[in-house]
């Protein structure tokens, strides 16, 4: 741990503060075990990261394609996710729907998900079926099939998914509203599920083009965690996925850059939700930026546990909110730190808003206490421990490290970076980002 300057606003004399610091350090949680995974790059550009875990005779395989909803072109929002569904619709040697049923026929589980930045296909199986999942992934990476009827039917499924997750639930559209108003040009302005209109406009030609562009080994990362010998796993991965030809074209990476926000934005909307919501959002830098670490500490101080600042102030002490929290959405491109309060019936919205803003600005005005710093560090350590219990969780951290940071070892370094972030770093980050000019205040009220 690095030595930190005494916080300027600390009420303790310097000597006592240092003593408190030492106590916090002495009581620090044990360091979570390192993953120490192996990383190799195949000739076709596929990144492979493997980690042996012999505690249970199973294997988890995760294939990440570095393409998400932020790569969608205008008029095709939701397409990355729709495409993800099409990957289950058959390839040269695997008829439609067989991918999932082959895996379940041996007792395995499989699924996929799409985010703003990536599309992830995963499976967990009894360990001896590692060749099966590699064969399946290679086949659909190399030889996907699509036909018009299947595509149209799956598009209806995705539209139902949007209705189910987003439109038919109270607050289901909240993140859509936040992002639509926080961003002006960057594709984060639309969420992964996309719009009905754009889903309707998507065609089989779009599927072909997207597949050729993004579903290529030089845009993919395979993470394997489980009960295998690492050399054997790499050899198997090479036998199947290593044979998929590299794309001759570079994978496009150009995206519109969101211009800095220069004045406070205020938006009031109406939705048929039971209780009003207030959102206070600020633009923050991307995942690879050094400030992402203090911002994650800030989110802990604001929002992890019933002793956290936002819970204590808005929910517990003042009773403004049914639910309130702040979270840092740290992504590949600059994203948002947003705080949300679902306001109790009959409560004054201005007061709730002031209380929420006050908690964000307090982080900029004064350094967090040593006690809060120690607590946040312990909570981050616990997240590392309980968030890396399963093979799937380990593979997710490793693949993220490779895709976003370019290096599997960053999954192990991350913890040290978090522990090195100081109270002063948190304050500096809060001062830099939690400013009125960089702020969106969104109110969503019941129909007037």
């Amino acid at each position: 741990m690095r030595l930190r300057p005494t916080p300027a606003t600390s009420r303790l004399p310097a000597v006592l503060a240092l003593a408190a610091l030492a106590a916090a350090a002495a009581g620090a949680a044990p360091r979570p075990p390192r993953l120490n995974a192996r990383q190799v790059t195949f000739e076709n550009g596929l990144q492979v990261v493997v980690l042996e875990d012999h505690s249970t005779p199973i294997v988890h395989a995760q294939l990440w394609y570095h393409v998400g909803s932020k790569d969608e072109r205008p008029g095709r929002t939701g397409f990355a996710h729709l495409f993800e569904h099409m990957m289950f619709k058959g390839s040269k040697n695997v008829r439609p729907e067989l991918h999932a049923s082959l895996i379940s026929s041996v007792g395995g589980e499989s699924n996929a998900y799409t985010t703003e930045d990536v599309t992830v296909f995963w499976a967990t199986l009894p360990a001896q079926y590692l060749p099966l999942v590699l064969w399946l992934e290679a086949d659909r990476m190399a030889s996907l099939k699509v036909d018009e009827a299947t595509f149209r039917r799956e598009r209806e499924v995705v539209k139902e998914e949007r209705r189910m997750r987003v439109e038919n639930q109270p607050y289901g559209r909240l993140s859509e509203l936040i992002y639509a108003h926080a961003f002006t040009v960057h594709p984060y302005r639309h969420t992964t599920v996309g719009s009905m209109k754009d889903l309707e406009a998507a065609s089989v030609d779009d599927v072909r083009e997207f597949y050729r562009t993004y579903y290529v080994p030089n845009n993919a990362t395979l993470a394997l965690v489980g009960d295998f010998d690492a050399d054997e796993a790499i050899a198997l991965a090479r036998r199947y996925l290593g044979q998929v030809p590299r794309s001759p074209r570079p994978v496009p990476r150009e995206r519109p850059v969101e211009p800095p926000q220069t004045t406070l934005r205020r938006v009031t909307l109406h939705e048929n939700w039971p209780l009003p919501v207030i959102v206070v959002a600020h633009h923050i830098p991307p995942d690879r930026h050094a400030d992402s670490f203090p911002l994650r500490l800030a989110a802990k101080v604001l929002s992890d546990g019933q002793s956290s600042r936002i819970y204590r102030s808005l929910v517990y002490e003042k009773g403004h909110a049914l639910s309130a929290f702040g979270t840092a959405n740290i992504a590949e491109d600059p994203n948002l730190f947003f705080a949300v309060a679902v306001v109790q019936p009959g409560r004054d919205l201005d007061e709730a808003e002031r209380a929420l803003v006050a908690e964000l600005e307090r982080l900029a005005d004064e350094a967090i206490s040593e006690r809060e710093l120690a607590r946040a560090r312990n909570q981050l350590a616990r997240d590392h421990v309980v968030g890396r219990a399963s093979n799937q969780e380990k593979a997710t951290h490793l693949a993220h490290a490779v895709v976003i940071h370019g290096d599997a070892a960053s999954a192990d370094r991350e913890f040290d970076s978090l522990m090195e972030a100081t109270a002063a770093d948190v304050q500096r980050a809060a001062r830099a980002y939690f400013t009125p000019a960089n702020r969106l205040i969104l109110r969503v009220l019941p129909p007037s």
Partner: protein
Amino acid sequence: MIALPAVCALAVLAVPVAQASPPVSVAQASSPVSAAQASSPVSVAQASPPVPVAQASPPVSVAQASSPVSAVLQASRWPSSTPPRPLAPRDIRFPAYEVRTLPNGLQVVVVVHREQPAVSLRAIVRAGSAHDPPGRPGVAAMVSTLLDQGAAGQSAQQLAEAIDGAGGLLTTGLGRDLSFANAVVMKGDLALGMRLLAGVLRSPSFAPEELERQRQQVLSGLKVALEDPTYLADLVFDRLVYGDHPYGLPGHGTVESVQALTRDDLLAFHGAHYAPNNTLLAVVGDVEVEEAMTQVASAFGDWARRELPPFSPARPPGPARRLVVIDRPDAAQTEIRVGQLGVPRKVDDHVAVDLLIKILGGAGANRLHRVLRIERGLTYSASADMESLKQGGQFVGQTSTRAGTTGEALRLMVDEFARLKRERVGDRELADAKAYLTGHFPLTIETPEQIATQVLNALFYELPLRDLETYRQRVNVVTLEDVARAALRLQPDRLTMVLVGRAEEIVPQLGRLGFSRFEVIPPGALDVLSADLRRAR
């Protein structure tokens, strides 16, 4: 777990993902004990030796004759091939665990697992919302909510400071048959975790100001929940299936019952049910058995055994056909539930019934998914679950679709229930369902939490612990006759059907599809406690 959905919907914000298929949740639904764990999403017992290799790689009929419009998109010279053979199968057995009982009756499970330097503590009290005093739904839920809002001389905020400061987690909640409190701490903080957990279970304060605070939270939570179509569909379905049995009542209470409950209600419930001889405790993680037992004895050893109150709730009614439409004029979709009374967890043919329902709509099979989603694109998710609790259970098929296709989806679901009884399940279909369950076993013992869940399940339902070892054999011996016998439990002409959606558009479809008798509950008129589901005028 009985949970109000408000916070869940918002939690989605942090992780905006969309999955190709809904997460498999079949196992969860049949296991209320699994609901008691905060962290691990998977559950339920299975045990098995390796999967026969032949089953694993069925001769894949290489790509069906492709239709003229379909085209292989990339790498036209990609070779033809068949699924590769598996590697050598591994030996699989249920991991070691220890079960002991303290002199005061507290049952303790210890699972040692050293990979991560943390210990989780899970306490289960054998009383849940089903044990609410008659006419007072929501008492058990409020007791569990208030457990960590002040206990053993510490205020709510002092407790929060203590657990958060150590980077730990402390959560409480309940199901139909049980209440729970869980703690997760780093291994050096085991004594702290044990002390906090003992405090909240044994001596919650139920401070009046905390009750008022949480009462407001629950009332607002209910306001949100009653606008949530999935909550509404489940609420009404449970009520219709279980009738006056407490499984049919809203676990978090109603607005009126929550307003009426008093501190004395809470004290009485806690005094009656929270006792060592009514509690299971699992200690899981990086700790030796003896060290764990020493700490348990120190925190819980002097908790006095108590005589437990008798429990004899009303019997659930027999299945009766009923179709209810809950009108929500601005719904984007219709939530659909179809099903009826099922079986409790402890029945001799549980495995056969489980296979039957899996064939209808569970992982490894799922006719509903095939018919509604794959063949017709009517929905994102269609599944069938078996809820099997201490005293009874239910079979429930669920899906959601737009208003215009609601009648069609309902018709298909009802037909699949009927077909399950009318036609014998096919050989291959049963073999696939069995292969899934036996093959899946090693996935259910990956984390120490999952292992503990299985042991807790067995203890909670008073099942033989050796069943944990013999699960695979018990699945493998199930025959087509056993499944046909299990199907006799179904009464497809007496299904409970609930639709939550736009009545104006749904109702005209019902008559056309042969659903001549139904009830429509207008917006704002629902009273789940009354027999006709309507508020008195």
